[in-house]
């Protein structure tokens, strides 16, 4: 549980090189683009040999002037190639050809071409091969012109990506329906739609020597603690890895306590959640290629809150929040309590209950601990199978699972009916936890608790609880204590921990996040809450 060392300084060096980590740098890394088109074509084809998705095309853009086009098929909008790139270039060169002989066309003439003729947002020119290659791989079309020691790069990012859809893992009854996609620019745009202030910063960096994944650290300047923001940036810069395919890669690399089972970051695919977290002064980390955005720092209680808590009326929210906390305890302790009580403390149950449990367990061949472990593990397996299965067979497995685990096992006398009730209660309980990464932690911790209960009874459970509490109170997320609000105690932050006060009383941001600018709401002129007004 050692804290990850924080050393700022070393920046993202070497990431620009196009080689996988561990391989020697390629011979073309330091080469410059030549004037001779034939030579350039030769180099380009050597670099991209055996890349069947590359498109190479020679054209004559003006009489006597040859050019060469290269791009990766599928990642550019090839429809725009003709109208937005080729036509303006041809036109420009025709004009230039008319005015000057081709030998006189120089690099300096290119700039007006980029600025005036080509109606594309991102146009660059590269003199080094390494930049040209990076541009081509980043959805640019490279145009080499005979006699020019430069490549024009026209970025027409395209290809087919998933559109904005309703998020599947975080569905709500009341609330926005849009979710993040795999494209980082769409994702940042979805947040920008909601938070319209220039203070919303989107700090970009590139991680992964091979994947060159775009990462955007987003925060609201003035609200987020600058030290914390720097901390996040520095930790990200320290990462040297070949590829980042999902936000989970960087979550594990930058969290405070890598050996803790408890999640120290939150992920969401909802722009409204991200906007809400940013407004409280947190950081969001977007990763290109995944719809899941990381949010840090988080507290334990935040992982018990769903975004709908803030959209539904506060009475309902509070009721549901308490239900969630009750079921959190059920999810964590019910099987171990059952084991402890039936194998050590039969005196604790009401007589009729103990007799009916005894009656149900009469013909069961296994001790309660083995029975419980068996059932819990098969439940976890069923759940896992349910996720991995092709949707078409899912139904078959659920029927099988219900019949085998639910009924046949009881009738065959392998497990007792109370155990089935306990396992299903626990299963349902673990699904009431709004964030899946906390739910899976709770499910995991259940097993050591069950073993402790089987060995030491209630005493073992108390040992387990003590260990969990001690561990959780010394955890932190980006330096913010995990149990903030309760330990260390902040009275005013209890407005949004176990209860959620109505919005007209939610005057301040959590004190552990924004120490300077904590006011988020003003009472009306007379100092009364808005809802006291008679409309």
């Amino acid at each position: 549980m050692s804290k990850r060392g924080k050393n700022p300084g070393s920046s993202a060096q070497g990431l620009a090189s196009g080689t996988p980590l561990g391989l020697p740098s390629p011979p073309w890394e330091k080469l410059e683009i030549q004037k001779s088109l034939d030579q350039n074509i030769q180099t380009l084809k050597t670099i991209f040999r055996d890349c069947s998705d590359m498109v190479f095309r020679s054209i004559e853009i003006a009489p006597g002037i040859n050019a060469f086009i290269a791009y990766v098929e599928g990642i550019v909008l090839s429809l725009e190639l003709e109208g937005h790139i080729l036509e303006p270039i041809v036109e420009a060169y025709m004009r230039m050809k008319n005015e000057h002989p081709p030998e006189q066309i120089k690099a300096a003439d290119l700039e007006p071409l980029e600025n005036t003729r080509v109606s594309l947002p991102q146009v660059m020119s590269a003199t080094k091969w390494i930049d040209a290659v990076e541009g081509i791989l980043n959805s640019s079309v490279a145009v080499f012109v005979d006699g020019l020691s430069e490549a024009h790069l026209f970025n027409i990012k395209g290809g087919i990506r998933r559109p904005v859809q309703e998020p599947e893992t975080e569905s709500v009854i009341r609330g926005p329906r849009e979710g993040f996609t795999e494209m980082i620019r769409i994702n940042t745009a979805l947040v920008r739609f909601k938070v319209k202030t220039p203070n919303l910063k989107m700090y970009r960096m590139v991680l992964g020597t091979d994947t060159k994944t775009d990462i955007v650290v987003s925060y609201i300047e003035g609200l987020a603690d600058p030290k914390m923001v720097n901390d996040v940036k520095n930790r990200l810069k320290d990462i040297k890895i070949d590829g980042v395919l999902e936000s989970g890669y960087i979550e594990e690399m930058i969290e405070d306590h890598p050996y803790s089972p408890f999640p120290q970051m939150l992920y969401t695919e909802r722009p409204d959640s991200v906007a809400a977290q940013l407004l409280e002064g947190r950081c969001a980390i977007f990763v290109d290629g995944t719809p899941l955005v990381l949010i840090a720092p988080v507290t334990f209680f935040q992982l018990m809150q769903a975004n709908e808590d803030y959209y539904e009326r506060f009475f309902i929210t509070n009721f549901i929040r308490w239900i969630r906390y009750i079921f959190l305890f059920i999810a964590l302790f019910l099987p171990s309590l059952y084991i402890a009580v039936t194998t050590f403390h039969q005196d604790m149950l009401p007589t009729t209950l103990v007799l009916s449990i005894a009656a149900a367990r009469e013909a069961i061949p296994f001790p309660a601990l083995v029975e419980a472990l068996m059932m819990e593990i098969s439940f976890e397996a069923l759940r896992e199978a349910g996720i991995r299965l092709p949707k078409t067979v899912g139904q078959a497995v659920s029927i099988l699972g219900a019949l085998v685990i639910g009924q046949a096992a009881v009738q065959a006398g392998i497990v007792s009916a109370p155990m089935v009730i306990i396992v299903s209660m626990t299963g349902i309980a673990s699904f009431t936890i709004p964030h899946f990464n906390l739910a899976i932690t709770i499910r995991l911790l259940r097993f050591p608790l069950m073993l402790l209960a089987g060995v030491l009874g209630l005493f073992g459970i108390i040992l387990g609880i003590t260990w969990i509490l001690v561990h959780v109170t010394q955890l932190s997320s980006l330096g913010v204590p995990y149990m903030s609000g309760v330990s260390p105690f902040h009275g005013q932050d209890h407005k949004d921990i176990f209860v959620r006060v109505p919005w007209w009383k939610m005057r301040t941001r959590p004190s552990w996040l924004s120490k300077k600018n904590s006011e988020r709401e003003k009472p009306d002129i007379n100092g009364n809450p808005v809802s006291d007004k008679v409309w």
Partner: protein
Amino acid sequence: MKKIRAAGLLLSVSVALTGCWDRTEINDVAFVIGSCVDKEGDQVRSTLQIALPGSLGGSGSEGGGGGTAGNKKYYLESKKGITLRNSNLEIQAGNSRRLSFAHRRTLLVGEEFAKGGISEMLDQFARIPQNRLSSLVAITEGPAYKIMDAAAPMEQFPSEMIRELMNEFTKTPVTLKVLANDLLTTGVDVVLPYISLQQAVPDNIGDQNEKKNIQITGLALFKDDRLVGVMKGPEIKMINLAMNQSTTYDVAVPSPSGKGYITITFIENLVTLRPVIHGDNITMHIDILAKGGVIENNSNYILGDEKHMNRLEQEASKEIIAQIKTGLHKLQDQYHTDILGFGRTIHQKNPKAWDRFKDRWDELYPNVKVVVNTNLHIENIGAVNKPFGRKDVKLKHD
């Protein structure tokens, strides 16, 4: 660091080695749900009623489930020993599962045993925490184990039925804790419910075994820890009331109109004792406050108006006072037991007087004068105010 981790791992292994010493699976436990104490010669006979989970009809237990004795959901096991614990240990020796006394509902004590004194058996209940002091205690007519094996068709076990009966009978049922407390308190004598078997139906109906019913038929009266007598008859209800232990009680009042009875049930009552002391003259006032309603009127008396209700309340008072006096007369003159706790009341309300009385309380007790003050409210006469099913001509207005 590595060494510390290795040491930690080794230590955690030792936890698993030491564990489980008192682990007992629920199907290795014999749940004692009732027990009986009887005297046999010089020895103590202990009879335990043990639940048979196998015949309680849990799912999956049809196939397995140990040796069941007939259709019964329990079986009795009885052994003799020099002490109660010894005889229980004898039973354990002949039982494949560990006896657990934590769920004992009732403890029945045979009449013979109780006459010899009950305090010496109490120690074993308190010494081991597993034995709950919440078991209810009752005295039985004849040997206790006979009652334990009586038919209790309504409940799963006879002991459960006795517990329900006792919960109905008094406001605070006598548990082992209450019993020990009463034994140790000065100025009050112990009283326990007296349980016997009653004919449930006339002889010529039904199966012979099912004919006897468990019932509370009297009050077992103690002097110190010895049973000195049993009070039976209609007075026990009123003595119960005077002890402020009555939950609900019914009084059948002779109708003021002559023929028939009007039955009143009192659902709420509060009884307080109030001593008035002049020298050695002690007068005990029993103040009864009760609310209730009419549940039957088989006479032709009309209950509709206030005058009639007042008259009825007076008649009910007379009935209650008469019965309490009869009962108290028996207690004071015949059994000399102070189960109402007159002594305790004086001790609490007038400690100085009690200091004078306490050494000769046994002599003074029979001479305590008793005044019963009643304050009855009949608040509800039911759904009909005139006698139901009678022609108006026969109704009596006075």
